[in-house]
Structures are given as structure tokens and as C-alpha cells.
């Protein structure tokens, strides 16, 4: 990887980091377990690496933005996540912020 590519990759990851949290919170208005959430996000054009998504779910749950429960589905125990009440409030504020940034970037460009 050249220096320029490495630089681009670092900036890309930095740019994606906050967006991923917003996307995950938005997608978890509906209940999902890890893999179906990953598929749902990918089907909407947002590919997320396993090592990014699954730990992120744990962190968001620790912060109180998600709730989770273990449940059996198709003969396999899975951990299902959903947006919590606090998560909904934070998500609404983050969405406003996202829209403001989006509009500002649109104006700049």
C-alpha cells in the first residue's frame, strides 16, 4: 500500500466511524441479531467488517443505547438487539446532527 493509499484508508475509516454508529442505531429500530443486522446493512449498501460490527453492538449496549436478549431461533441461541428508549432519543439527536452536517457539506461543495 502506498503512502497516499494508506492516508486515504485512514481518512476513510475516520469518516465511516461515526456513520456506522448512526446506521446501526437506525437499523436496530427493528430487532436483529448480529449476522442479520450485517446482512441488512450490506443490502442497503453499507458493508461492515465482523470485527467492527459485533464489538460495536456490545459497546452500544454497554452505553445503554441498545437492549439485548438471548433467544432460540432455528435451533440456535442468538443474541437479539433492539434500540432502547435512551437509544431512540440519542438516535434522533444524532440524526439531526447528521442532517445538519450533510446540508453543510452540500452547501460547501
Amino acid at each position, binding site marked *: 500500500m502506498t503512502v497516499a493509499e494508506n492516508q486515504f484508508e485512514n481518512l476513510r475509516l475516520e469518516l465511516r466511524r461515526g456513520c456506522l454508529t448512526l446506521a446501526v442505531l437506525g437499523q436496530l429500530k427493528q430487532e436483529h*441479531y*448480529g*449476522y*442479520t443486522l*450485517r*446482512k441488512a446493512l450490506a443490502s442497503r449498501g453499507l458493508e461492515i*467488517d*465482523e*470485527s*467492527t460490527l*459485533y*464489538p*460495536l453492538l*456490545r*459497546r452500544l449496549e*454497554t452505553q445503554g443505547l441498545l437492549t439485548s436478549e438471548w433467544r432460540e431461533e432455528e435451533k*440456535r*441461541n*442468538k*443474541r437479539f438487539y433492539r434500540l432502547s428508549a435512551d437509544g431512540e432519543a440519542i438516535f434522533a439527536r444524532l440524526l439531526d446532527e447528521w442532517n445538519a452536517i450533510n446540508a453543510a457539506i452540500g452547501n460547501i461543495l
Partner: protein
Amino acid sequence: MELLDRYLEAVRKQLPWERQDDIIAELRANLESQLEDRQEEVGHPLTPDEAKAWVGQLPAPRMMAARYRPQQALIGPALFPTYWFIVRMVAMWVFVLAVIENAVRLGTHAWSAAAIPVAIISVIGIVLANVAAVTLVFAVIEYAGVHYPGRFPQIAKITGNWDLNDLPRIEPVKGEHKRTFGLAVTDAIIHALLLVWILLLPRYPVLILGPGLFAIDALPYTYAPILADFYWAVVIFSVVHLVWKLVDLYTGAWMGERRLQHFTVKLLGMIPLAIALRAPGHLWIVLKDPAAEFAKYGTQLAQINEAIYLGLRMVLAIVVITFVLELGKLWLVSFRRRVVRAH
């Protein structure tokens, strides 16, 4: 699938022990679902080669496990600027003090070439130990702030507080250095008066000793001849310094940075000290009548000369060290300017 079990085991080994089972159970459910989808895509259970390819595209176990850990940095980005500032201050001052302490020790004990590497290692060890101590303190603060934010709210404020009075002064850049002619003339006059005072000292020692002169006259001691050499070295040094200032005034060089003059004067200033240190037998004070008074005052005289010897070496050590540090600082500034220009 055995390969998936081995992958999960590799992840497990690097997870916090209290969360291993829970995380691995969730990860297994997710990856097994992913594997089922893959098998549906290819239309059969994965062959050993396909299984290798599928597991091989998963993130490295170490990276997967690392992302589950809450704290990645010993000192996080919020605390790091404060830590970096303090650790640099501590390292710099500890280095300066350790160098002075070792230089004085080298100067006051029997000198040997082997003592220099020992002194260097000692200075490095002292600096590293202090840096490690500061790092440890900040790591504890970081840990407390991350794990118990409610219990230590004041830690969160550490990086946010600042004082207007702490802002650095703006140093005048080259070409903007303001030095008035009046200040340059006053400086030369003060040096001239200082030279006159030095020249009057042999005839009027009261100018340096004050009323203490009468008490000293009553003592059985007098100055050794080396102090005359020291005196004339100081006189020559003062004359050179004054002439240089007058030439600067005449040629207009007083407006410049006078860096060469600054360092030359510092270097010349060491000569009188070096001359004084060459006193035969390390005697700066002697008895007026050695034959009659040595038995009574000999021990006291040795103690006085020993104290003068120690004092002179300490002063010379400090002067040399500050000179070297100033030269180093000048080199650093010049190096930084060159790097900036190159960019």
C-alpha cells in the same frame, strides 16, 4: 466445523476472561449463520479448501478480540496532551539537575575516565525512572477516569482547564528584535563603571568588603599570589567586553542579535575561573606569618581553601553546563529553521 472452532478458540484466548463465554457464544451464532449462507450459495457443505478460504477471509483473531476490549490506550487522547507536556518538563528538569549533580560529583571526587560512562548511565537511568513514574501516574488517572467516571468527575476537567496567564509570550522574530540606542549606551556605561570599580579594588578594597575589611585585616590570613592572576584575568575580560560594546555602538552592530558576542563573552568568562582553579596546592588564602601561626590556624586554613576549591569547581561546572545547553538550544533552533525551510 473444526476450523471455525479453532478460530473461535484463538479469539477466546485474547478476550477478557469474565466475558469470554458470552462473546464467543454470540460470535459462534453469527458465524455459523454466515457459514450456512455460504453453504447455500455453493449448494453443498464446504470442502476443506473452501472452508480454509472462508475462515481465512474472517478478521484476524487478535483484531477481533482487541475490538471487544474497552480500553486500548494506556493514556487516552483526552489526557495525552497534558501527559506529554508534563513528561517533557519532568524529563528536561530531571536531566538538567542530574547532569549538574553528576558534574559536581565528578569535580569533587577523584576524577577518572571510567567515571564518565557511569555518570552518563546514571543520568539516563534517573531520567527514565522519572518518566516511568509520571507515565504510571497518568495511566492510573486514565484508568480511574475511564472505569469510574462518576466517582472521579474532576479527572474529566483536567484537560479542559486552562489559564490565560499560562499562554506563552511571543518571542520577537529575527528582524523585529527591538533594542533602543539608549539601552545600548546605558549598557556600555554600566560596563564602564563596573570596570572602574574593578580597577579601584586593589587600592580601595573597602569597595568590595565594606566594613568587614577591618575585621578581615585583623585575621591572620592574606591572599595567595594566584588571586592577582585571577584579578588581572577579570580586568582583561572586562576591558575586552567593554571595547566590544563600544565598537558595536560605533559601527551600529548594537542593533543586531549579537549571538557571537554572547557566546564569546561566556567562553572568555570561563578563563578567570580556570586560572583560579590552577592555584598551586589549591591555596587561595595563606597565612600572613606561616612560621608563627601555622600550628594554630593550619587546620582552619585548610578548611577555608577546601571550601573555595569546591565552590570554584561548582561554579565552573554550572557555567560550562549552561554554556553547552545554550549552544544546544541554538543548534536546535537553527535545525528547526532548516527543516521548516526545506519543507
